[in-house]
């Protein structure tokens, strides 16, 4: 019998203004979608898998993002100590996903081989593709290899009982989604394979990519995974995630931090 997992999305930062023209090819300059920043956690009993590490707080202001809570505090709010976490799954290596590797000193990390090859290789000779990565963070990943703290994945596979990983290339060479068993059924944690629900629904072309066609093909694969049930999908940056799901912890201003995205949504979806 497959193990079921609780799935948390932690909203650690937000950009209240993010316009369609900055997000998608052909986007309108006056349509504000906003952008939320998440990292995630799977929990089953006492076993914890952290998914991505968020952006480094010190780097966010210069990039126009507002940090709302630290990674450590977000996890502490649901009873998890970052310093004790033993497993961290990295969906890809963009700056807003691997900014806090050292918050997890005891962890082993997993990432696609294709992502590592891309972020250290000829892809990085293109300034526009290089722009979403940070040299020091990539160097830290290299360091982890030599510390024997990384395992490289190749394509699709089983990560744990009830957790499969799916390579969804395009946004980045090694972008990965997770298919997770929960008490509500199977959930697709798309991460940045799908940034916004509407991106997948309308096959919009996100403006930051490694391979546009692959990215669009991956949108289709994600849609096929959820078989028409949008509650099965958790996009990587959609503010609708923040307001649709029950929150276990909040900021002092009442905004949600820890969302239980494996539970039934409490609000409808606008597509």
């Amino acid at each position, binding site marked *: 019998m497959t193990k079921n997992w609780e799935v948390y999305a932690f909203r650690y930062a937000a950009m209240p203004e993010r316009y369609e023209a900055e997000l998608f090819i052909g986007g309108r300059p006056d349509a504000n979608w906003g952008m939320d920043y998440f990292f995630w956690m799977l929990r089953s009993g006492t076993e914890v898998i952290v998914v991505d590490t968020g952006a480094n707080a010190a780097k966010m202001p210069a990039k126009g993002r507002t940090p709302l809570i630290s990674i450590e505090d977000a996890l502490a709010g649901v009873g998890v100590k970052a310093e004790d976490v033993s497993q961290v799954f990295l969906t890809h290596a963009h700056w807003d996903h691997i900014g806090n590797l050292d918050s997890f000193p005891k962890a082993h990390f997993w990432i696609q081989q294709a992502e590592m090859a891309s972020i*250290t290789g000829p892809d990085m000779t293109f300034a526009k593709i290089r722009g979403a990565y940070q040299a020091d963070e990539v160097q830290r990943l290299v360091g982890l290899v*030599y510390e024997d703290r990384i395992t*490289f994945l190749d394509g699709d596979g089983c990560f744990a009982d009830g957790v499969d990983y799916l390579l969804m290339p395009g946004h980045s060479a090694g972008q990965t989604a997770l298919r997770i068993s929960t008490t509500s059924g199977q959930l697709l944690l798309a991460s940045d394979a799908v940034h916004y629900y509407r991106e997948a629904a309308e096959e919009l072309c996100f403006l930051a990519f490694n391979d546009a066609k692959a990215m669009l093909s991956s949108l289709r694969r994600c849609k096929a995974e959820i078989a028409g049930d949008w509650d099965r999908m958790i996009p990587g940056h959609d503010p609708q995630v923040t307001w649709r799901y029950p929150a276990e912890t909040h900021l002092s201003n009442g905004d949600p931090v820890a969302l239980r995205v494996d539970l039934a949504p409490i609000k409808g979806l606008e597509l």
Partner: protein
Amino acid sequence: MTKTWKIYGIRYATQNGRLASHTFLWGSAEEELAGLDYYSWVLVSDDRAIVVDTGGAERKIKGLGRQWIASPLDGLKELGVDPSNVEDVIVSHAHWDHVGELAAFPKARFYMNDLEMESITGEDMTFAVMREAYHAEEAQQLVGLAYEDRLTFLRGDGQFADGIDYTLIGGHSAGQIALTVQTDRGPVVLATDAIHLWEEVEKERAFLIFHDLRQMLKGYRKMNQMVAGDLTRLLPGHDPLIKDRYPIVKKHGDEPFILDLGGVI
């Protein structure tokens, strides 16, 4: 008319003996060899100096019990080449004894094969035995150079400059390249570590450290073919016989330090 180059080998360290069991696959622990010499190289023409590999860091060479002769950077200066102004450094592969002085070339563009970068930052390095000859901080420095837009990735075979071609040999490392350099006495293949010792080619004896055994062995044959069997035109990366066979340009004390590897034998 193709440009010709001078090839200088800078012998910056040496080793006083080495067991065959530490050198060749199936080598005997009873067989004593002469030990490896350590080189950095520079290709010089009228208007340009291209460094090939930087040599290993002094503290690492000494830490392994090798005998340090003099800094490869001093060797360059003796040849009238200022490391701080060098514009091009070719990295034949990223083993520690070849990339120990990357920071000594602040103005240089570096050139390395793409498969080498993938190997030193990827799955290959999760195998401890494959990780042995690579060091994390040097792999990180190479990544840093890529992000500063100072690393050009070479792919496969091609022309580097007028009179200098590169060939992907692989084998010893995933991205090991050899250079074919036009000199006054015709083309010379600078194998660097595609061949450590002439004996590897002469007797098809496999060097003990490799990424892909078959690729390395096929590489020996390929390079032999490239020089049409004339091994005086095939320069190994570590052979102690080099100092005895090529003209010495400069000594450091008693030790041959700079050799003219494109010179007349």
